[in-house]
């Protein structure tokens, strides 16, 4: 009986239920193995009968018995593995406009060089830009083991993205910038900010920066790079021979060593540790802790550096100057153009030119009219003279009204210049020989050093200096005075 039992087919299910095998032992009587019997045995073992199962069984029965001494294994069932879902993700439109331009250049033109200075590391976006897209997760498909039991597929997870009001997510997943700025993405968060923070240097890793907002630079700005912002710029390290354009203030905390190639423009104040060989225009005040060396600067506001020095260069402040030291004991030429309003004076000069030209034209026409009138009194005025005189009268009326406008504008500009100009230079420690003041068409070059505190002001129409003891002296006592001839150095 036991031997007979060994000859019965058996169903073996793999532990992971991924496969099932029908094993037919040697010596098993093939004639007894009907489809019904085998299917019944398979079903009894708990294996789901599929088309594949039936096909395998039928094929086995249809085959002539081969080697009855061997165990026959029939692969009667396979599990269908689950297809797991795909996690959602965020796809960013990373192709920066500036970068694209440079890349496109590289691809399309061998001749035009790519400016690596212009390749920005920051993704600047404008309001309304499509900056990316959230791709939803895919759900996956369940599988079945050989017993017919469902093997659950894992669902894809939603992409993790936190955004604030600076980014709008549309129902189709597109991400739209709600403001101009730079796109920041980190740790599943995204936001657009009006502030660029550069932790290191502005160099080839960042490219030039041109940003509608504020910029904070953790270290310095390397040679030949340009940083432009409509707002404030703060540089914690040294600015080298770079160009800085700040719509508002520039705070050069680590100093600015321009090496004659540093340029600065600020719509607000320029604050900092020191300036060395920098040229530019400051629309408000200059406040420097230490030195301003060999700089060429127009300052529309005042200079306030009671501990600092101005050494060399040419500085044109509109407002008051309060400084520690002017010049150096080496007698270096240090020019301070005071009582000047650089923003308005060019307009005044231009208007003076226009008014002068108009006056000349008026005079010329008046002379011509007088000649015609003289002929008229002698009864020699022809029809042509009469036509010409009408033209002259008309031209004179136009020129007269233009001249009047130019004069009135010039008066306004002059009034404003007088209102803004300040002749008040307060020096705490020393004014060295070699310092040259320029004021109202005259230069005053110090021929000796005087100690502070001392103040250079206008006393009536005279340019004087006042010592702390209250004494007032004409500057001519300590300086050589020369008239400045336009186009010639007064040095």
């Amino acid at each position, binding site marked *: 009986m036991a031997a007979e039992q060994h000859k019965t087919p058996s169903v073996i299910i793999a532990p992971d239920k991924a496969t099932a095998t029908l094993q037919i032992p040697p010596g098993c009587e093939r004639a007894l193995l009907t489809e019904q019997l085998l299917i019944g045995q398979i079903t009894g073992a708990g294996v789901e009968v599929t088309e594949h199962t039936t096909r395998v069984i039928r094929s086995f029965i249809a085959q002539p018995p081969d080697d009855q001494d061997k165990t026959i294994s029939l692969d009667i069932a396979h599990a269908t593995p689950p297809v797991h879902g795909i996690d959602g993700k965020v796809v960013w439109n990373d192709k920066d406009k500036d970068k694209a331009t440079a890349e496109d250049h590289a691809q399309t033109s061998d001749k035009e060089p790519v400016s690596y200075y212009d390749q920005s590391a920051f993704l600047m976006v404008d309001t309304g830009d499509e900056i990316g897209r959230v791709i939803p997760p895919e759900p996956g498909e369940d599988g079945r083991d050989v017993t017919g039991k469902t093997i659950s597929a894992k669902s894809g997870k939603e992409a993790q993205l936190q955004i604030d009001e600076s980014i709008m997510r549309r129902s189709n997943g597109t991400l739209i910038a709600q403001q101009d700025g730079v796109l920041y993405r980190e740790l599943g968060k995204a936001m657009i900010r009006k502030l660029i923070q550069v932790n290191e240097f502005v160099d080839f890793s960042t490219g030039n920066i041109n940003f509608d907002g504020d910029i904070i630079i953790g270290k310095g700005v390397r040679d030949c790079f340009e940083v432009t912002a409509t707002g404030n710029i703060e540089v914690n390290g040294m600015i080298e021979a770079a160009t800085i354009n700040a719509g508002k203030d520039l705070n050069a905390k680590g100093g600015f060593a321009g090496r004659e190639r540093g340029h600065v423009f600020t719509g607000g104040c320029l604050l900092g540790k020191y300036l060395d060989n920098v040229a530019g225009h400051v629309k408000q005040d200059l406040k420097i802790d230490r030195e301003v060396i060999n700089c060429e600067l127009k300052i529309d506001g005042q200079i306030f550096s009671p501990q600092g020095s101005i050494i060399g260069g040419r500085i044109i402040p509109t407002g008051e100057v309060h400084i520690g030291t002017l010049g150096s004991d080496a007698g270096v030429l240090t020019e301070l153009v005071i009582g000047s309003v650089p923003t308005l004076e060019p307009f005044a000069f231009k208007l003076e030119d226009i008014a002068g030209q108009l006056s000349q034209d008026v005079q010329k026409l008046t002379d011509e009219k007088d000649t015609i009138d003289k002929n008229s009194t002698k009864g020699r005025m022809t*029809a042509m003279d*009469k*036509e010409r*005189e*009408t*033209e*002259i*009268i*008309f031209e004179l*009326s*136009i020129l007269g009204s233009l001249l009047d406008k130019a004069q009135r504008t010039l008066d306004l500009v002059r009034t404003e210049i007088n209102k803004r100009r300040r002749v008040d230079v307060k020096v705490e420690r020393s004014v060295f020989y070699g310092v040259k003041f320029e004021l109202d068409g005259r230069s005053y070059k110090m021929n000796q050093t005087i100690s502070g505190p001392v103040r250079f002001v206008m006393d009536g129409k005279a340019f004087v200096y006042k010592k702390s003891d209250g004494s007032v002296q004409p500057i001519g006592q300590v300086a050589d005075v020369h008239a400045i001839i336009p186009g010639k150095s007064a040095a």
Partner: protein
Amino acid sequence: MKVMLVDDSKTMRNIQKGILTQLGYTELEEACDGLDALSKVGAFQPELLLVDWNMPNMDGLTFVKKYREQGHKSPIIMVTTEAEKSRVVEAIKAGVQNYVVKPFTPDLLGERIKETLERVAA
């Protein structure tokens, strides 16, 4: 108001245009002589005409006569170097409402225009 300037001198037309523009008249048409003016009055239908006397092809006086013959009633100011009284009378007889003798000032032309229009409106 539509104003037609009839003068062979472009400079003079420009002067008149300048004055009229300052006075607020912007619908202006120009003609370089009487013939040119006659060809344009039908389409432009001026409400005031400033006409020079001495012009080639057709002088101002002939133009005024022909214009009136066509039944047009718009006021005409003769702007001319002809200052003799007989000439003025001749022009007025031909149908001119007012008379400006060159050289004139912008103010004078303005006054004459105003005066003419007031007279016509009365």
